[in-house]
């Protein structure tokens, strides 16, 4: 029965992935990407990895795609330009990728790949322990150091996102006057706070176009 489920999920996932590339509107692309992620979550269940299926739905289809849709809405893209490729070039590219895919398929189907020896985590062992618990034990013993490094990566992600997304004037104003609320520094008129001009480090890095579109 599970091969039928797999084929249905694979069809849904392929349609979603192709539509991500083909749709003109980025919001529609994002929604089709959610569809592809959901089909992948179903495949994780088929592969007896329920923990990863839950994480796939919560983190990918939930958090990451919400971030995507939020940014798309935030940017308010007015025009949708043509992708700049002629139809001939598109056709050539399409055939090239179809050939690439066919080559990959042919290599895989030529024979059973050498899978190597089986490990000790047989389905019975994992089922007796519980999939989530088995992953947790592995994560906190063998992979403790990479797990801690992961927390560092997330910290860098948080700080990087905040620093990059904050407007330059707001950031410098908040550094210069920590008591001032951030919204007070929003450039409504053309006037910039004096602290921005006086900051010796920042004056060189401000390009002319970022000053034009600063407000």
């Amino acid at each position, binding site marked *: 029965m599970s*091969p039928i489920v*797999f084929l249905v999920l694979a069809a849904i996932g392929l349609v979603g992935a192709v539509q991500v590339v083909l749709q003109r509107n980025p919001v529609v692309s994002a929604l089709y990407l959610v569809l592809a992620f959901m089909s992948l979550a179903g495949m994780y269940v088929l592969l007896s990895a329920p923990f990863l299926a839950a994480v796939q739905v919560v983190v990918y289809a939930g958090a990451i795609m919400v971030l995507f849709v939020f940014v798309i809405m935030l*940017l308010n893209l007015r025009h949708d330009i043509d992708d700049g490729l002629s139809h001939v070039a598109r056709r050539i590219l399409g055939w090239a*990728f179809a050939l690439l895919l066919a080559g990959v*398929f042919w290599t895989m189907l030529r024979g059973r790949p050498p899978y190597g020896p*089986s490990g000790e985590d047989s389905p019975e062992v994992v089922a007796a322990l519980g999939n989530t618990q088995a992953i947790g034990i592995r994560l906190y013993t063998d992979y403790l150091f990479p797990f801690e490094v992961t927390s560092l990566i997330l910290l860098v*992600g948080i700080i*990087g996102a905040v620093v990059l997304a904050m407007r330059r004037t707001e950031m410098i104003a908040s550094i210069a006057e920590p008591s001032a609320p951030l919204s007070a520094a929003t450039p409504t008129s053309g006037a910039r706070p004096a602290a921005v001009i006086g900051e010796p480090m920042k004056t060189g890095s401000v390009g002319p176009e970022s000053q034009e579109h600063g407000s």
Partner: protein
Amino acid sequence: MKLPDVLTGPVPTEWYLLFGAALFVIGVAGMLVRRNALVMFMCIELMLNAANLTLVAFARQLQNLDGQVFVFFVMVVAAAEVAVGLAIIINVFRARETVYVDEVNRLKG
């Protein structure tokens, strides 16, 4: 009605690998064809997910849970990467009023 044998047993690992390869190639094609930075980012996510599926498929095939732990790490890195990358795209949009990579060519010289 009797189903053929291939539709009743467990799913062969090769099927997952083929689906992962198809997903990856679609991601590569989208990355190269589309010019919208946001859609290109989505195509990167698609490729990461194809690699994840392959890892989980091999984790089942080799009866080794390390593959699933690795997928967990890949998801964490992808989350951090999306946060920083989307912030960069917002910054580019603020500076250039566009997210189309053909129009962001200041560094081209």
